[in-house]
């Protein structure tokens, strides 16, 4: 089904019809994770054009019915009863009329080798609400129940690895907060404009609301919880307490993560907008700190105390140059 812009939408009790000249294979998969396990289909079909076929269109369904144009049902089944390795079904279109379709056979063959007679047919996908993605033996969280795209990944957060199955749309922020329950990192705007979601990825501060969890496989992520705990506080956390660098506390984790990174960026010699001399080692001045911290908004107005806290840590960390 295409919408007004000609974009294919996922089937939701809607028929997908194939055009006569369209030789793109249709791939039905139980989920992206299943598809990725058979990702040879995608890359193979895309780059090798042996049969003149175009790369496949992928639909995620749990149940489907294949009928030919007479309305005769060629096949009707669902993935729920099918073993893991067969949860990907390629329905090819081929110019030869001799080959017969026996989708029943498909489950005994490797999905790659399925062929059947070229004829127009209708595919009906059913996005049954009750269906859920089968866990892959990983630590399954609340069932994703996502019949769009799901991916598995391992997120390394605060030194610990977490196996997750996530909707591909999940931001790093929501993966941390909603899936892993690291609620220290905050959602202030979800659009990269407030900095409350700041975390450290491989030591660099980023807005976790504007990145996808799936993009961070293999990265080392540090959240506020990883910097310190009430029993063992990071020196920056302690400084914020000492200088009262917060009021409501909602921007605070982002401020602290940013502050830690800022001192690292100054040490690295990265200049800023207010650095008078672009090539010199940046100064540890209040105006430098304010500029570098400008991506962290505090509506309670604790800014001056935040600068005091960061300045103290900078001083005690042996950084020079505080006028």
């Amino acid at each position: 089904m295409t919408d007004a812009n000609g974009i294919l939408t996922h089937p939701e009790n809607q028929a997908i019809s194939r055009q006569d000249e369209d030789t793109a294979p249709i791939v039905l998969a139980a989920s992206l994770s299943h598809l990725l396990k058979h990702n040879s289909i995608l890359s193979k079909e895309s780059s090798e054009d042996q049969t003149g076929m175009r790369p496949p269109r992928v639909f995620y369904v749990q149940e489907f019915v294949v009928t030919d144009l007479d309305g005769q049902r060629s096949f009707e089944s669902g993935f729920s009863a099918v073993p893991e390795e067969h949860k990907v079904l390629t329905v090819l279109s081929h110019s030869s009329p001799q080959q017969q379709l026996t989708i029943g056979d498909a489950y005994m063959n490797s999905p790659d080798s399925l062929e059947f007679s070229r004829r127009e047919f209708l595919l009906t996908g059913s996005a049954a609400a009750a269906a859920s993605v089968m866990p892959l033996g990983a630590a399954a969280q609340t069932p994703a129940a996502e019949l769009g795209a799901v991916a598995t990944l391992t997120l390394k957060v605060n030194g610990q690895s977490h196996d997750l199955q996530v909707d591909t749309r999940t931001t790093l922020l929501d993966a941390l907060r909603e899936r892993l329950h690291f609620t220290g990192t905050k959602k202030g705007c979800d659009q990269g404009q407030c900095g409350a979601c700041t975390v450290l990825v491989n030591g660099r501060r980023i807005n976790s609301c504007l990145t996808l969890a799936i993009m961070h496989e293999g990265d080392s992520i540090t959240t506020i919880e990883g910097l310190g705990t009430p029993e063992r506080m990071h020196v920056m956390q302690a400084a914020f307490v000492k200088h009262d660098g917060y009021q409501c506390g909602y921007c605070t984790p982002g401020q602290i993560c940013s502050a830690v990174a800022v001192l690292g960026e100054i040490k690295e010699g990265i200049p800023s907008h207010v650095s008078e001399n672009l090539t010199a080692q940046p100064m540890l001045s209040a105006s430098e700190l304010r500029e570098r911290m400008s991506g962290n908004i505090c509506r309670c107005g604790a800014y001056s105390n935040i600068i005091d806290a960061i300045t103290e840590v900078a001083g005690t960390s042996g950084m020079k140059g505080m006028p």
Partner: protein
Amino acid sequence: MKAFTYERAQSPAQAAAAIEHHPDAKFIAGGTNLLDLMKLEIEAPAHLVDVNALGLDKIEQTPEGGLRIGALVRNTDLAADQQVRRDYSLLSRALLAGASGQLRNKATTAGNLLQRTRCPYFYDTNQPCNKRRPGTGCGAIGGFSRLHAVIGASDACIATHPSDMAVAMRALDATVETVKADGATRRIPIADFYRLPGDTPQRETTLQRGELITAVTLPVPIGGTHIYHKVRDRASYAFALISVGAIVQPDGNGRVALGGVAHMPWRVEEAEREMLRGAKAVTARLLRGAKTTHENAFKLTLVERTLGSVLAQARSMKS
């Protein structure tokens, strides 16, 4: 945000092929603009091709003595690069004037060029916007237009391009290098990279479908005094009302490009011949044909005065 599938590209050509063959796919690099737009379904790709691991993150000298900047170089790293700071400091200054530290750490060279307007009518999907949905009208024309374009706009769209980096790239005569699925490469001078809105404001660049930016190259350094002066409502972390990127040579000649005034960085080489005559003369030629609204007419004066300040600063830095 609409559901999408995701792959990590293995090579630039394969990445480009993945886009070309998928009915609705987009590259994702830093994601700091794309994901923002996807949450609002202003962009709704069905497939994302992650290009972060393609090794396009180097900054190297070109054989001619210029600089090749990989498309995936992060804004922070580009601004901090020693060669850039020394020989192309306008680029450094422009990058540092933009966004926030967190965003600069994630945003990439190519992504920065390709970022889309922040016009509030573009962003509010309840409002008419010819760029977002061709044919629906333009809410800014006749609406709140203080931030909008004063030159090169059309009756269909008065949006501005928000990038600071692009202004510097334009002043520095950068070239955008691309690759397509079949491996064919192209070199697009930055002057030819962006489009004016015309009747098709939804088309913002001259890139073709499936064309992947691999690098941006800069010519041999031309020296001079480099100044980027950004005027905005806040001291930091805000888009430009207007900005002036200038390179002024010891003899007083040079180059000027403007941000915040048009659908692209605005540079008119003819106007640069007036530089010795001062800001008024340059601005008159630079913004000849300007069409303002009741709310943004101030930008014309602001450009002139900012340029005047820049030229004065250049003179004082020289001596």
